[in-house]
């Protein structure tokens, strides 16, 4: 058996590989569902109708799509530069932390300024959380994977400390919860969803434009493709790494602001809900293409909301629903491998079938 890089796979081939992956996913998880004692077709159709079947369900799906889209954009910018930012989780939480400080403790601000300042502070605090590993990377060539990962845990513990300690709402008689945001610090709504629904696509367009049409965006790609080329072209690599990570972490921070002020209405660990990690998958599946991010995130929203829906609709335990989502995902990611590589079993046969 041989594994070879697929050169110039045609669109048709790619589509076929993807469809086969979907089939494999449906069959494999179908077996799992049968083992649980359910009818796979009922489960699948419930997942789809649970995610898209009505206004309320579609809203819930979009509410999953928004944070995934924006976080993916943040991750994408870093990945373009070949900077493994797996600290989205922490950057989201720190962005939410910044916004919460503005919402709860800067009450001297005029009310109409509160939300813009929340976004600004959220962007900066989330960005700083990503700039820290960027500086270490730029100056000392430190491993950014480990650093961004570890910074997640610090952010998580920091939020926990605030929740159980200084920021605990004293009105709740000892129950550890940070106070809800005042009305003026909650995001305005459109179509029953917070304005993240507009912010997310706007950011998608902006990042797509930024990466394709601006000098700064182009620099990011060059640094990612080849450091020596960048150096030869006289680019200031340290500056590029640091500003790019400010943007990357800042975008994740904006997710935090939106989740805190639009969904949770307070600061809790659930503000991040694993979006920082899931966004790595969506970014990867989108092939580092900003416009595709929106599409992939929507599909993920369907998967997440559908998985949540079948729990109450069909009484499937949460853990089983999670396994199901995991299996579908694994197949989707696995298909990516076959898009880029092909497996050859015996030389003679494959040559003839390859030529076609």
């Amino acid at each position, binding site marked *: 058996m041989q594994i070879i890089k697929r050169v110039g796979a045609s669109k048709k081939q790619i589509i076929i590989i993807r469809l086969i992956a*979907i089939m494999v996913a449906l069959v494999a998880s179908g077996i799992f569902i049968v083992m649980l004692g359910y009818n796979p077709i009922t489960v699948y*159709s419930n997942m789809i109708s649970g995610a898209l079947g009505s206004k309320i369900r579609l809203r819930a799906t979009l509410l999953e799509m928004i944070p995934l889209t924006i976080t993916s954009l943040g991750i994408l910018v870093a990945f373009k530069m070949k900077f493994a930012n797996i600290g989205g989780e922490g950057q989201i939480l720190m962005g939410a932390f910044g916004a919460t400080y503005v919402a709860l403790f800067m009450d001297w601000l005029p009310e109409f300024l509160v939300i813009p300042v929340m976004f600004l502070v959220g962007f900066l605090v989330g960005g700083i959380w990503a700039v820290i590993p960027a500086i270490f990377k730029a100056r000392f060539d430190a491993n950014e994977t480990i650093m961004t990962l570890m910074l997640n845990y610090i952010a998580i513990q920091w939020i926990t400390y605030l929740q159980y300690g200084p920021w605990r709402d004293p009105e709740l008689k000892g129950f550890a*919860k940070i106070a809800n945001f005042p009305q003026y610090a909650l995001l305005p709504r459109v179509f029953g969803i917070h304005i993240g629904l507009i912010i997310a696509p706007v950011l998608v367009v902006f990042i797509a434009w930024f990466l394709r049409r601006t000098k700064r965006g182009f620099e990011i790609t060059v640094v990612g493709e080849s450091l020596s080329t960048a150096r030869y072209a006289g680019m200031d690599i340290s500056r590029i790494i640091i500003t790019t990570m400010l943007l990357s972490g800042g975008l994740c921070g904006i997710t935090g602001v939106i989740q805190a002020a639009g969904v949770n209405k307070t600061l*809790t660990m*659930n503000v991040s809900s694993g979006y920082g990690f899931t966004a790595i998958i969506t970014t990867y599946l989108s092939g580092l293409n900003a416009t595709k991010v929106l599409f992939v995130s929507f599909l993920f929203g369907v998967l997440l909301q559908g998985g949540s829906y079948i729990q109450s609709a069909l009484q499937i*335990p949460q853990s089983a629903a999670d396994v199901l989502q995991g299996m579908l995902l694994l197949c989707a990611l696995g298909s990516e491998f076959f898009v880029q590589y092909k497996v050859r079993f015996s030389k003679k046969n494959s040559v003839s079938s390859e030529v076609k």
Partner: protein
Amino acid sequence: MRKRRILCLVIIACSIIMMLSGCNTQNGGKQEKLKVGFIYIGTAGDAGYTQAHDKGRLYAQEKLGDKVELIYQENVSDTDDSCVPVIHSMIEQGCKVIFTNSYGYMDYTYDMAQEYPDVTFLHCSGSKSSDNMLNYFGRIYQARYLAGIVAGMKTETNKIGYVGAHPIPEVIRGINAFTLGVRSVNPDAVVEVVWTSTWYDPALEKSAAVSLLDKDCDVIAQHQDTTGPQTAAAERGKWCIGYNFDTRDVTPDSYMTAPIWNWGPYYADQIQKVLDGTWKSENYWGGMEDDIVQLAPLTKNAPEGAQAKVDEMKEKIISGEFKIFEGPIKDQNGEIRVPAGTVMTDEELLGFSWFVEGVNGVIPEN
């Protein structure tokens, strides 16, 4: 190529079948059953708080049979509004009654009750109610007093550990009742309290119990949703008292008893009232007289003579002859807080914010 084309056709056919069957279940699924949704803080199989509720749900389902369909969703966080989309979704699926089983759901449940005036809401362990929302709970502290008797008779080091969840009145009340039970049979014993600030975190709750065992406690009691503290005691060869659910099988050589919930009859009764159209928003706080709280049968690990003492006090509690929070009761500083001859009111119990004498622990100020 032909093979691939066939494959494509198969895939398309499959998706069409799936979509059609989706429509079928939606249109044909309309039944006249009363649909009821339960929202749980933990997993339905946590061998603790949530399982006790789920046992109640299953009891009601069996009792009411075909007339109702009782569904649940587990692991819904209560420190933010995670329960709101779940409530929306359940109502959209046709639920006319919603049970939310944790303290933190209170404000969100209340808001939802305003948004859906036609739906009946029952919230466990809170304090808010409206025309279509009641709050319900049980006087589990009565069973905790009895558990305290068992612990007080058992301890040799005169130190009993108590793993507490959040320092809210519900938990404080339980610790106080337990301590009064301990001291009624063993005036020298003290109850050491640590907080975990979680309801459901088996590892953390276990390590909290370990810290108490390190302090020389030889009986571990708890107010948590898991058996974490119980297993810590068993691993050290010490004794334990569970909570919520009879978990004697988890640590058979360590477990003595547990204050447990018996929600089933209440759930069946409330849902029946909704079916009959006689449901009213009446807050409920029943005790041992209603059998909604119980002390699990003592095991072989319980001290000799404990059963007799427990039975005696249980009878007195049920008959009303004995009131647990009747003065004189001193606080941790030895000051009398409830003078002799007076009994604490329900309102005072619901706002309990101080420890009785014999508790070694701190209620965090804020």
